[in-house]
């Protein structure tokens, strides 16, 4: 992890790091939303769709910092 953006290769196909970080961010946001629904915590939110988008962005940025620099 040197913090320099680098592409991912899957079977010789190059994928941009933002795409990978974005996919991971959406998956993590989806998983968080699932947990919030399960424990009825989402009822405290004003507008969950917007929270989902915010979570996806936050997770994407966090993944960018920690795992996949883009």
């Amino acid at each position, binding site marked *: 992890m040197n913090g320099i953006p680098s592409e991912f290769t899957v079977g010789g*196909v190059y994928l941009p790091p933002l*795409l990978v970080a974005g996919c991971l961010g959406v998956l993590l946001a989806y998983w968080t*939303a*699932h947990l*919030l*629904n399960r424990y*009825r915590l*989402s*009822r*405290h*939110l*004003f*507008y*969950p*769709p917007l*929270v*989902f988008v915010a979570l996806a962005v936050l997770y994407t940025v966090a993944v960018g910092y920690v795992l996949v620099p883009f």
Partner: protein
Amino acid sequence: MNKTTKLKEAIKTGLAFALVFGIAMQFGWMNPYWAGWAVAVIALPTAGEAIRKGTLRVLGTIPGCLAALVIHALAPQDRWIFLLLTCAWVFGTSYLMVSRPKTSYFWVMACYVCLVILLSDIDSSENMFESAVFRTVETVMGVLVYTLIAVFVWPQTNLGAIKKSSAELAAALTDIYRAGRDTMLGQRAAETAFQGLQGKVVQKLAQFAQVLQAEGSESYEVNTVRQLWERFQRLSTNLLETAARWQSGLAELERIDVRMVLPDLPAFFSELDFRFATLPEVLAGRSPGDPPRTARLEVDSAALQRLSSFDRAAIEVARKEMEHLEALTAALLECARELGGRAPGTSETKPMPAPGVRDQATRFPVPDWDHVRSAFFVAATTGVGFLIWILFDPPGHSGWFQLSGTIALMVALCPQVRASRMIIPVAVTSLICLAIYVWVMPQLSSFLGLGLLLFTCMFLNCYFMSGMGRFFVSMAILNILQIQNHQVYAFAAMANAVLFLVMAFMFLYVMSYILGSPRPEKAVLRLLDRFFRSAEFLMSRKAPEPEQVSGLDRWRIAFHQRQLRSLPAKLAAWGKAIDRKHFPENTPEQAQVLVTSIQALVYRLEQFLEAGVVLRAEPLSRELREGIMTWHVGLEAIFGRWARNPEAEPVAALRQRLKSGLIRLEAQIEEVVNQAEEDMTREEGENFFRLLGGYRGVSEAALAYAGAAQVINWSYWREERFS
């Protein structure tokens, strides 16, 4: 469909799919997958259904092509006028698509083909006409090839299905009539199993409509008497509605000796029994059937006088519905006799006996609010897709404009199907097709190999998938494999196509918030709000003050009446879509009871409004103005509160208020009727008691709704959650 039939159908579709590609490629036609689309979409179990859908596809393609040429001619260099015209066309065709179920597919094609042709060559308009011609030719060819295969290879015919379906419909109508008759004669409890019987008739009516379209496309004999079959269908629908309205008031007759008040009742039911018994025989051609005799339902005035005012009102309401029932069954039997060639047919259009008088006719079109919203959603998605394309140009490029609009059409057609649920199936099927594109297709060197691949893909799709799933797989096969006359392999383009498909469905999901929250429980709350607002408005129009009604008021009344009639079916559809896992406290049965109570409220409101048409300035109602006004304003206020909060009125308190109101009003009525009896004509008396019955019916139905609403945990449905 059993496994053998499924296998045969899958083989037929796979064969037609491979064949149309072969023909298009042999002649070097532009975009052979256009013909493949035609086969994938019209592949239906019977030849009649396929012919009908194929015909609509071809006919819809023509206005779509023409609209694209006109739009391009009017706005060749101006992107905003281009966008405006396209969105206007998309809005119009989408509205017609959702509001005209019989020709829905025609309008789907008119919209979709216009978007396809507009973008057939985005660099210039040089090849646009050529594209429109090829699109039409290849659609015709695809339809023709599949039709020939459907007709000659293991044909599945519809012939005779209409007779079978009409006999089943007649049997279901007989059951519903018998249930009402037995309830009225005190032989069974009110509302026992009525919902089940009603659901069965609705199902049989839907089957009949489908069979009529399919066999009408396949059989010349059926097509020549199509008008009569359509009349039979409309009469059956009206009969169902009248039976439901009749049934909704039977609980109020339980403590009345109806045989005393209506001495002709046995003869009346005997005639109706005869008609219902004769109907299936005439439809099957086993009996010529005698023409229906007149059945009258006179009231014994002396027995009627002994009843309380509200019981007299209940008798008047039931009698009116039974007269409608009599007229409808006579018309239905006459129609069946005409179909069997036993009664002289006339070229004139016969009047259709309707369940009730329709008030406040307006010359202006009365749109359905949900249809307008759906059309706006499709137009907005197309417009925003266009802006995304020209401003950001992400992977998918012009597909943001064309494909987003097309998928939005699907969402508008089935609003209960959630766009978010489509994302994963689309991603999986697209990735499988991408793998075929990368590893299998480059190995193919002749049409034999390609044809075999296409046959296998479509065969597996048709054998294992159905409904929306089959559509998605077909979309993946046709969009990702991208078969062209001069095949070029570009992995990046196809990977972008997969990415675009997934992003397009996400975009659709975001845009679906235009229609409101896509959560079904929220949709139910929204519809209930609209329902009670319309009910409140219509009640407010009923103030017993004679007044001039302006053209705008007439239009608003017609609009709210339409809302009232259409909302129970929408509530039922959304109620079924609620995910029970998330709301274990609210059972599906409770939701069903709620919908049933709403439907009963619609019937009672309609009866009330119809009674009011003939009695606005009636002297009797003037005498009772104060009492009636109090009741009237009370009901209006209750509907207003329910619009804001469906559980606003606890049932016990409401029952108590209505009961005390009824006792007070009954005393007033007795006094006024005794004073005015000599001056009152018989018709005036009947109309007055119909109006009274209308008030009581609405009150009883409101109580039933309050009871159904009380057991539902509304706060749970209102809670915010991720959808």
